[in-house]
């Protein structure tokens, strides 16, 4: 149930994220979730897109360095304490979160949490064992 995420290396320069979103937009690729990690001189743009194969291809054609990695998407009700409940489970089971980001889907009244674990498969089975709703790629509209 883990899902694929693509990461793009960027220097901290004006207009770089715009350039990537334009490339993806022109090719009809939809960004489903996105987060940017940065240091003083470079950043990593992490994205979940609806067509990973195509996104990687068009970005590489434009000389971007792209890495595919697995993350875990967890669906929680959009209410206070939603994230804490998931983190409590992870803490109890001693599973470390490398990084995470979240976004909220208004219409369905739920939040999606994207987690990066060292061992995504193990994390998925632990989360599911505790009745936590792990979302698959189809939930995020990924082909």
């Amino acid at each position, binding site marked *: 149930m883990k899902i694929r995420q693509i990461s793009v290396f960027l220097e901290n320069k004006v207009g770089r994220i715009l350039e990537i979103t334009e490339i993806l937009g022109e090719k009809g690729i939809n960004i489903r979730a996105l987060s940017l990690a940065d240091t003083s001189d470079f950043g990593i743009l992490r994205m979940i897109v609806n067509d990973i194969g195509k996104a990687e291809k068009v970005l590489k054609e434009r000389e971007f360095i792209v*890495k595919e990695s697995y993350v875990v998407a967890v669906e929680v009700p959009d209410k206070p304490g939603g994230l804490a409940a998931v983190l409590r489970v992870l803490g109890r089971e001693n599973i470390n979160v490398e990084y995470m980001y979240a976004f909220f889907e208004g219409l369905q009244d739920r939040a999606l949490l994207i987690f990066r674990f060292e061992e995504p498969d193990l994390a998925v089975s632990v989360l599911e064992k505790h009745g936590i709703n792990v979302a698959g790629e189809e939930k995020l509209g990924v082909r």
Partner: protein
Amino acid sequence: MWTRHILDEKDFLAEQARKSEIRCYDRARGTMKTIRIWNRERETLPESKKAQLQSELLLNLVKRVYDAIPFYRDRFDRAGISPKDIGSIRDISKLPFTTKDDLRYNYPFGMFAVPLERIVEIHTSSGTTGKPVIGGYTEADIDMWGEVMARCLTMSGTSERDIVQNAYGYGLFTGGLGVHYGARRIGANVIPISGGNTRRQIMLLQDMGSTIITCTPSYSLYLAEVGEELGVDFKKLPLKAGNFGAEPWSENMRKEIESRLNLLALDIYGLTEIIGPGVANECMYKSGVHICDDHFYPEIINPDTGQQCDPGEVGELVITTLTREATPLIRYRTRDITSLIPGQCRCGRTSVRMKRLMGRTDDMLIIRGVNVFPSQIEEILVKYEGLEPHYQILVSRVGSLDELTVLVEMNEQLISDEIRELETVENSIRTEIESTLGIKVAVQLVEPKSIERSEGKAKRVIDKRKI
């Protein structure tokens, strides 16, 4: 404490000249007289007498190296030259050159002309690839070093009444001890503070009332910067002059150093292979460095053909150590590009003058007084999969200090979605380069294809320093 109003450069020079004058007792005449030249006899030799002295020294040197150093015997034999073919200093062009590679190849003691028990000190070059270049000193060499350094320090007005704050590094680096020996010879009071520890430098400048400072030109500006931050008014300090060297600098830097530190800033030149600092120094007329040419015989050659250049023509500086005992060198190729200045200097010295260095025939960089070759950095980068060949070395001057940044292109092998992993890569490259070069550097990961591709030889070094 003294104050000064600079009306124009002439007044400034006149005042500096007055300050550098030493009233001393002239034994021969039994009267007081004023001198400003350390070794008046040797530094004002008429051309003919100088040539005669240089010829005698060269003949002796050629015989010594031929007898004592198998490397030179072999070189001479192969070139079909025997010591008896050398009749005067003019014959020097018949002799083969010596290169830095020759020194490395004969590391550690292959270039020594005396038995090890006669060596009293050893110095090595800074941060070169692999094995360093070694200079050995006999008692007489140390004595000669003190002599030539005393000449250099006298040029900046140093006398036995001065306090020399020596901020060149003490240790294997020749800067610290070379200046030390010269200042001791003069009888000045040396403060052997060595490099770094800037706040303490400022404190001692104020508390000891140092009158002469010796350090790299960029460090002198850093001292000014820190001093200004601490609210120090350099116009109120007794500091009067500085011998600045071990890295290239410019007239603009001189102006800045002189106005910020309120002193006379003079260029000092030297290299470990020859002796260290003391090969040459500017007098207060600032019209080229006076080479101590009764010890170090300079030639300017065309680096491609090896032919001697015409007087005043620009080429590579080649030095023969006429008097060095332990590690004498015949026609050593310094790789420094410059020219010799024909004619005599207003200061009265007849020692030949050399213009500011214009560059190098190799790709050596001097960063904060440390010699850096791009190949040293390349050797480290090749160990990382995919890194080489797309890297670039960026040298800039931030404030007054040089900064070296290594730009490394990101690639498929290195990319990660985790910042931590990329920072680990950066740090590991940085630590390795720093421990090899002995200076702080920055490593920056950049986007692929962002480093300019060039046809033919890649442009590895971008030197943005305006010096």
